[in-house]
């Protein structure tokens, strides 16, 4: 079932644009190639356009322009064939809470023309695999959040799809459950050779799960590569300094103007973050420079580049801040729900 196109790409997106009524440009010409058999992460803050991209690639929504092929099939010309090849776990769970676990799985199987013994066997297999065998007869309304998510993923796998879309699969889950979910996702790619397109606004999640990722910001892909590649492009370290008091306008920049080895400096009145060649050498110089301008330092730390730094480099914004901003601009109901 998991056969792929000769070129080995599970998803190919070219110049995808999506403009919503009211002229909201959710996607502004994105290009993406997702190789088969691995987890591809679509990382971006709230409102970046991740969910829109998934909705279009999974045939739910229509593109304004651009070409999208999933499992080698054009999603606009042949949505039905694409639907046979994909499984989708949306941001809002697709579990029917009025049905029990087994009924939810059976429903998905029947829609995909799997019947009788074959269906029964597959349903049992999935219940077992996702630790739901004991709760198969309980109505999904009474499942915990983690169980509902597991059932959600299981229902997307009944027909053994080639490509699985996971739209923010761990949003709203407890940290413990999140870790469990990560293990499950890793297992799916390693053991079943599934291609997974995962969207997330957790840097840590993208870092851990994605073999390759694309960073999406305001409807554009700003960077692609493996998490390692992206981080290595940023040579050196990051120094974070927190001041004891707010600094007067401009003083931070003036203070650090002549410090050698600072490649990039971002700051507000209280915190600063400097990209440097070598953290250990730069720290004393930075501290000295700040003290000389009367800026007392509260704490200082040095770190290897993170995806946050990668995001910062390409967008000039801090990820967490962009995420909050994006969340504020959107309806309280959820990301990109219009």
């Amino acid at each position, binding site marked *: 079932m998991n056969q792929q196109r000769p070129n080995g790409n599970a998803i190919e997106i070219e110049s995808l644009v999506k403009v919503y*009524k009211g002229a909201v440009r959710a996607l502004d010409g994105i290009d993406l190639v997702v190789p088969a058999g691995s987890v591809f992460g679509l990382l971006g803050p709230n409102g970046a356009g991740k969910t829109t991209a998934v*909705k279009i690639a*999974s*045939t*739910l*929504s*229509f593109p304004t322009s651009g070409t999208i092929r999933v499992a080698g099939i054009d999603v606009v010309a042949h949505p*039905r064939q694409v*639907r*046979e090849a*994909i499984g*989708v776990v*949306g*941001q*809002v*769970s*697709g*579990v*029917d*809470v*009025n*049905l029990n676990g087994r*009924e939810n799985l059976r*429903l*998905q199987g*029947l*829609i*995909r*023309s799997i019947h009788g013994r074959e269906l029964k066997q597959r349903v049992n297999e999935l219940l077992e695999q996702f630790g739901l065998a004991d709760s198969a007869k309980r*109505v999904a309304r009474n499942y915990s959040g983690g169980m509902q998510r597991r059932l959600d993923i299981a*229902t997307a796998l009944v027909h053994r799809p080639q490509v699985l879309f996971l739209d923010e699969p761990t949003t709203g889950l407890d940290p413990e459950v999140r870790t469990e979910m990560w293990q499950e996702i890793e297992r799916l790619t390693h053991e079943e050779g599934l291609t997974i397109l995962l969207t997330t606004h957790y840097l840590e999640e993208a870092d851990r799960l994605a073999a390759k990722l694309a960073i999406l910001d305001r409807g554009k892909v700003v960077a692609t590569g493996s998490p390692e590649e992206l981080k290595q492009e940023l040579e050196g370290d990051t120094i974070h300094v927190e001041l004891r008091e707010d600094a007067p306008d401009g003083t931070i920049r003036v203070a650090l103007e002549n410090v050698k080895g600072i490649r990039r400096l971002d700051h507000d009145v209280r915190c600063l973050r400097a990209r440097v060649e070598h953290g250990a050498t730069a720290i004393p110089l930075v501290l000295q420079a700040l003290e000389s301008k009367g800026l007392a330092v509260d704490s200082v730390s040095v770190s290897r580049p993170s995806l946050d730094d990668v995001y910062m480099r390409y967008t000039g914004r801090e990820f967490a801040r962009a995420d909050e901003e994006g969340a504020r601009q959107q309806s309280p109901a959820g990301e990109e729900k*219009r």
Partner: protein
Amino acid sequence: MKELLSHSLTMTDRDLRRLARQPWWIVVTLVQPVIWLLLFGPLFKGIANIPGFHAHSYIQFLTPGVVIMTAFFSGGWNGMATIDDLNRGVVDRLLVSPLRRSAFFIGHVLQTSVSIIIQAAIIVVLAYAMGAHFANGALGLLVLFTAAVLLGGSLNAVSNGLALIFRREETLIATLNVFMLPLTFLSSAFMQQNLIPHWMQVGARFNPLNWAVQASRSAISSGTDWGSVGTHLGLLAGLLVVCMAFATRTIHTYQSSV
């Protein structure tokens, strides 16, 4: 065709399981018709004495009206469940599966038909106990049930289609109220057609609810005009087809807006 049937029955099965887990819902929807029978029946008992009123008793006259109205509202409010499905992501999950689009609506219509038949049967038994007579035996009741199912099914399809367009409970409730209530009273459900004001008689002629009331009342009364029954049932069947076509189109509207 085989696939369409299989998908439709799968959806019906899903809806019926949901219904079976909330059996109180059938009881809730029966409260209104029972009130009509128990209160309107005695309240307007004297109507049967008006010159030119043909039925033996008002209960006799009112029963088909109550059955049809119950089916009308049963079907009409069905879109609320679809709004719930939309909010829970169930609709999106179904739309990215190879489910035949019309099966989504056929499934709902079949489920509504089952609940309408259960409700109609209960009302008929109750009315019988209160002294209503049913002419033409099983055939009369068959026409009554068919008219109820065709009308309820049509309303069901419209309601589910509107749910996909509006996607909000408030808008759906407001819209349904705007046309369901007037249609109820612009009919001969409570009063014989030739005894209501002329402008209402004209309006009633184009009112599907009235088609269903006329057909079923004629079929369970003596002196049935079978030609008129057939015409009205035909009109109702046509309405169901039109409503299904409308509903199926709303899926595209929905997908264009998400």
